[in-house]
């Protein structure tokens, strides 16, 4: 656009503004709605597509902090390879499925980006030093949600106790009655535990309730 005639320019702007605010006679309301919905769908789809892209194992592993510590320990564990070949990947356990909670977790994740830049856990030593704190965040979150992410795949109600090993059978039948949740007993199933994990567990149980304290 030329800048030679500012007056004409202003006139154009005003016209555009008028067009935006004035009800149109040229386009029917229906057409406008269709276009609007179309744009909305594409935008929403794109947004969710982005969301899904960041919900894959390979995305998590794009940071070496995740790949070189937790991922290597997860390799070969029951959720990585088992007799049925069904896998649980990082987002399955760490990113909630309900939309609201998923968004909440995604916003929290910006904290991870910040710490990536700060280099808070960019070496194994730093990671191990901070690990108990990170693990406590995850445990607390899972206790609060009654291990929602585990229950996406596992379900107390669907357990066939008779087909479980004796140790599991005994504990599960009483756990259900006592209102315990998966994470109360199944810590360190996908990763190694941090130093002092059992002490932290007792403190957490005392402050939040849950497992009968020993």
């Amino acid at each position: 656009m030329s800048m030679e005639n500012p007056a004409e320019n202003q006139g154009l702007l005003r016209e555009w503004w008028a067009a935006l605010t004035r009800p149109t006679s040229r386009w029917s309301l229906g057409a406008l709605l269709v276009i609007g919905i179309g744009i909305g769908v594409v935008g929403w789809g794109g947004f969710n597509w982005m969301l899904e892209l960041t919900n894959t194992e390979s995305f998590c592993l794009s940071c070496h902090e995740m790949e070189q510590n937790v991922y290597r320990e997860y390799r070969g564990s029951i959720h990585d390879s088992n007799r049925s070949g069904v896998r649980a990947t990082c987002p399955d356990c760490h990113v909630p499925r309900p939309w609201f909670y998923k968004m909440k977790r995604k916003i929290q994740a910006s904290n991870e980006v910040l710490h990536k830049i700060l280099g808070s856990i960019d070496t194994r030593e730093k990671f191990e030093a901070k690990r108990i704190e990170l693990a406590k965040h995850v445990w607390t979150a899972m206790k609060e949600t009654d291990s929602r992410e585990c229950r996406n795949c596992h379900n107390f109600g669907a357990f066939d106790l008779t087909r479980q090993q004796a140790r599991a059978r005994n504990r599960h039948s009483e756990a259900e009655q006592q209102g315990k949740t998966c994470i109360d007993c199944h810590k360190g199933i996908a990763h190694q535990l941090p130093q002092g994990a059992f002490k932290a567990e007792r403190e957490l149980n005392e402050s939040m309730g849950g497992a009968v304290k020993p």
Partner: protein
Amino acid sequence: MKTKIKAIALALALALGLSFTALGVVAAEVQALRHSGAAEPDQAPGIYKVTEGAKLERAYRQQPPLVPHPTDKYEIDVKVNQCLRCHEWPYSDQEKAPKISDLHYIDRNGVRQDTVNGNRYFCKQCHVPQNDAKPLVENKFQAATTNTNIR
């Protein structure tokens, strides 16, 4: 003189030949434990599952009891020992697991400690999961309980 040398040579040759055949016989009888030539890749070991539900008997009094459940997923390292999370005293009641015996708490000077002593920290050094793997070679081992010594 010449005949003597010839005789000796003959005797030597015979002896050598004999010993070779003898060696041959011995070599045929000896079998490597691995059942395949040393240069060939080993046979893959059998896949055994832990025998759960029943406890295999101890073969002698001092034997560390076999473990009646899988152990591979439990972490034992300098940071944590997950076996303790079920078998050490305050937890063992809650988990309905057999309590670790007192011998595990005695250090090398015979002093009782409050935590499992370092020389018993690596449980899997002594306690292995039980399964009904067959002996690799035939042998005459008898469990102490089936021994005639028992009164």
